[in-house]
């Protein structure tokens, strides 16, 4: 296992590197004059040029990339051009909030999705499956913002039992006002439950049709034993790895949900940064997201290998 981890690391590093290049290039295409942005419209051109030179925005592309990476690695991510705050702590705080939201969502998604998916898989074709599959399909097809808007309509506008906005004062933690976390977390959960339940269902059906399950049945094992001792572990492999790679989608959902509910997370920060063309925040935020995504993909790979012993001895 250790060897496998070490083998995967170069690819991980490569993924991060490529991501950082992409982010850098994308933000380079932005028609932004950093100096002008910081000093405002009325500052004299001389001052703007001087600031640009000081910031190094007139250096060649490769050099600027190098500088940025170098600074990023050492923890200096520059200052936000729109909020005039250091980017590092800002991002980390927001990222923390997003993480809270993500975890809240996941804690709802996982038990429901896995259980419902298993039931659907085991009763494939029959009534419980049809119902679960239909609901899953509707949930997974409905964009987050639609779910969010509808939930808002019902719980915040019509019945008024939950707050419609999750904006927080200053640097407060979302956990301090739990009711503000409910709707965003539930929205996040609803969309993903459908997807993961379907994944689990398919996996379960495949596993139950595999020859070793039939062999177990032929040995006179009870249905309970077959499902819990043999089928589940193998059926969980694909969904678990999918869940981990799903972080990609989760991040997307988080951005949208934070937009709907004005939740002070990293996603909302990115959106406002995009609108304000705040390059340092965009770059640093994107880099953080990419880092998280790459880490989870690495963990997903390793987890898959751990669950499938056959892959452990195979080469990278």
């Amino acid at each position: 296992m250790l060897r496998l981890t070490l083998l995967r690391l170069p690819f991980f590093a490569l993924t991060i590197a490529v991501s950082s290049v992409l982010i850098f290039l994308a933000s380079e295409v932005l028609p932004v004059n950093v100096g002008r942005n910081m000093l405002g419209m009325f500052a004299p051109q001389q001052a703007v040029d001087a600031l640009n030179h000081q910031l190094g925005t007139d250096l060649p592309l490769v050099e600027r990339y190098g500088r940025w990476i170098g600074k990023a690695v050492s923890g200096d991510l520059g200052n936000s051009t729109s909020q005039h705050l250091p980017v590092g702590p800002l991002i980390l705080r927001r990222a923390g909030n997003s993480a809270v939201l993500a975890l809240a969502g996941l804690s709802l998604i996982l038990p429901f999705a896995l259980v419902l998916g298993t039931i659907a898989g085991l009763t494939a074709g029959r009534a419980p499956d049809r119902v679960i599959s239909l609901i899953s399909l509707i949930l997974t097809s409905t964009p987050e913002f639609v779910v969010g808007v509808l939930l808002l309509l019902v719980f915040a506008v019509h019945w008024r039992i939950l707050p419609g906005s999750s904006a927080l004062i200053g640097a407060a933690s979302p956990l301090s006002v739990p009711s503000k976390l409910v709707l965003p977390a539930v929205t996040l959960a609803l969309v993903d439950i459908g997807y993961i339940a379907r994944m689990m269902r398919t996996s379960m059906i495949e596993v139950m049709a595999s020859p070793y399950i039939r062999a177990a049945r032929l040995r006179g094992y009870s249905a309970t034993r077959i499902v819990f001792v043999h089928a589940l572990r193998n059926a969980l492999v694909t969904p678990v790895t999918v869940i981990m790679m799903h972080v990609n989608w989760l991040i997307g959902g988080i951005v949208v949900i934070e937009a709907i509910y004005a939740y002070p997370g990293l996603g909302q920060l990115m959106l406002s940064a995009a609108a304000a063309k705040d390059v340092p925040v965009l770059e640093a935020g994107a880099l953080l997201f990419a880092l998280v995504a790459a880490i989870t993909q690495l963990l997903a790979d390793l987890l898959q290998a751990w669950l499938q012993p056959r892959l452990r001895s195979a080469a990278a």
Partner: protein
Amino acid sequence: MRTLQHFSGGAVPLLPAILRRLGRSKAGLLGAAIVLFWVLAALLAPWVAPYPPNNLVGPATQGPSTLFWLGTDDLGRDVLSRLLWGTRSVLLLAPTAVLIAEIIGAAIGLASGYLGGLFDQVIMRLNDALIAFPTILLYLLIIAALGPSRVNVVLAIATASIPGIARIVRGVVVSLRKRGFVLSAQMRGESLWYILAIELLPNVRRPLLVDTLLRLGYATFSIGTLGFLGLGAPPPDPDWGGMVNSGVRWLSVSAWMTAVPAIALASLVVAINLIADAFEEGARP
């Protein structure tokens, strides 16, 4: 061992098979009906919509009335008309983006999978890195960089889809390239183009078809989301996502201008996924 050695029911041409599979599933038919409805709405919008979509024709944020069947939005525009015209946008952009992505992605996957070697390795690493990159970020970066417009939406969605498609196609090609019929083609001296286009491509058709259907749903989903985030087609053109966005702050006043496009979008994506599901179920023997 299959007992039908001599008598297996044969494989039949693709299109009739698709339609037959759809026909077998009630859900699939429902999905097809819904999609058809929206397609008709898009085609007939210029004649059926009661008002021009961008004109201020009435009092703002009204609920449904005899004049305005679905109410008005925050600027006084007719929701129904905007809904119908907005259909054109969604139904044009999603298939375009998916089609472009499928063509490019398939080409990359075919070449990479068959040629192997360094070329394949490089492409696959780039691919993996792109897939790992959060999709919404990709959209954000592209549109923030290039500006919100219809073309850029298509570009963003296509770019985000290509790596996934390439990976699927490559996977199929890699599993096929050591098969007897490919080796036989090599041994009789077929050219590279023949092998890629005539021997391999038809075998990629089926998985690609399923993927296309699913991706259509996801592209529609994404167009809605981008519109909602303000990254889609710029105002004043009717865009369902954008309509939801502008309506959110008026939820307590009039929910119609928000709920209508939201549900419309959801119905379209659900319908596409129902079709994709029915097709996939039917594909299994």
